[in-house]
């Protein structure tokens, strides 16, 4: 097994937007190299348009790099073997409003290759872990934003992935929901899972992560370890502001 859950090597991603005559190109990320050690919680910080979501999608196999190599547990993120080990949570996930959480999770569990008793057990465990059990009888249309985010996390946990890729997992949540999700992520990491999360909330990243990558205009500006920001006056926020200015 690779000791790196994820590795980026000289990765570039250029987007093409078709226009009436020709197309325009713009760079999502450029010359990007980093590793995410297995078993660690790594955060990704950056301003809007810095390339955070591009990185998340490259790991999830939803985008293809224009240049360079992305590896997930030593394999291509497009392959089934890598995807089977990844749990992906996009920002503000959508679920059909008419369904109950158990039905939505059963569907995604089947897509992850689960069936029969294993599927039932996985759905039950994911609902229990994310605190959705008391709401099992409700429809998604009755869910608050926090509960939807829990459901998003539950679908990412169904197949017990080794790596969780979470795009803005606490975006728009109330303080209690943030506290609960932080506790959940800390528990998952204690179980040995690698977590890679992006966020606009420096304080959240500071509390959860062992290492933080700071992106500026598509490039990796800095990699900061917990010991560094704990020793720095002003903490991670000061380091971040200095990097992005």
């Amino acid at each position, binding site marked *: 097994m690779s000791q790196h859950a994820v590795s980026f090597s000289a990765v570039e991603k250029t987007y093409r937007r078709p226009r009436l005559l020709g197309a325009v190109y713009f760079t999502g990320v450029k010359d990007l190299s980093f590793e995410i050690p297995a078993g660690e919680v790594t955060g990704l910080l950056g301003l809007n348009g810095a390339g955070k979501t591009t990185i998340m999608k490259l790991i999830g196999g*939803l985008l293809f790099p224009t240049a360079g190599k992305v590896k997930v547990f030593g394999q291509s993120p497009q392959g089934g073997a890598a*995807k089977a080990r990844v749990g992906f949570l*996009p920002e503000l*996930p959508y*679920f059909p409003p008419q*369904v109950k959480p158990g039905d939505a999770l059963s569907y995604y569990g089947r*897509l992850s*290759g689960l069936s029969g008793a294993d599927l039932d057990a996985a759905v039950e465990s994911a609902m229990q872990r994310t605190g959705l059990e008391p709401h099992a009888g409700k429809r998604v249309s009755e869910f608050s934003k926090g509960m939807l985010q829990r459901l998003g996390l539950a679908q990412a946990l169904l197949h017990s992935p080794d790596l969780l890729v979470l795009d803005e997992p606490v975006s728009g949540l109330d303080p209690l929901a943030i506290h609960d999700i932080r506790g959940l992520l800390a528990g998952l990491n204690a179980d040995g899972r690698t977590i890679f999360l992006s966020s606009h909330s420096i304080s959240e990243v500071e509390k959860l992560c062992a290492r933080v990558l700071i992106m500026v205009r598509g490039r990796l500006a800095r990699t900061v370890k917990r010991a560094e920001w704990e020793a720095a006056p002003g903490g991670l926020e000061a380091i971040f502001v200095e990097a992005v200015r």
Partner: protein
Amino acid sequence: MKKIFSLTGAVAFNSFMESVRNRFFTLFAVFAFAAIYASVLAGVMAVDQEARVLTDFGLALMELVALAYALFSASSVLLREAETKTIYLVFSRPVPRSAYLAGKLAGSLMTSALMLAVMGLMHLLLLKFRGFGVPPGYAWALSGSLLKLAVITSFAFFVSLFSTSAVSTLVISGVFWTAGHFVTETRFLAESSGGAVAAALKAAIWIIPNLQLFNARDAAGASCALGPAAFFSAAAWVAGSYLAAVWLISGKEF
């Protein structure tokens, strides 16, 4: 292979259930009921040809209603799943894009089949209410409509993967549907004209399916109106559109 079938089945069943839960579907059912009821009124005006008018009018309306739903659904489903990011939750899993597409297509066809079955039942009840039995070749007429829907739905899925909006997919598929009912006339025109026009018309015949092949309802009274050519043609067009769509989606980023 078993895993691929299982994944395709999961996507198909989910797609079918989403359609059935959708209020849009309910609205169409209400519309279909009202439209078929209107056909009874038209039938009364047909005097001694009432049974024939009722049958033809009802079958045509059912096909158009199912077509409208199938086209709206096929042209918007992939765009909607990309916009709502639902597709991220699917493609970040070990789900081959070919299986996902096959599941979506199968789900859409299951929905069309259900719509035709429900509307057919309502139509037959109305016929019975007017004192008529089941028209000969009725099941074949419905089967022909379903084959047509399979052809146009798979084509709409293919178009939706390169068109810029659901509306453009609807327009292109609608033109395809209409042109498919005039292949015989197109062939006649190709034979009776010359030069570039004839060449263009001959090319059109190759890229447009002959949907008249599936019009069993035009041959009411025939005990087996759909020949093997209809099934072979439908299978070939569905397979062709599906494979072209798989080729497009395999290189698509989300």
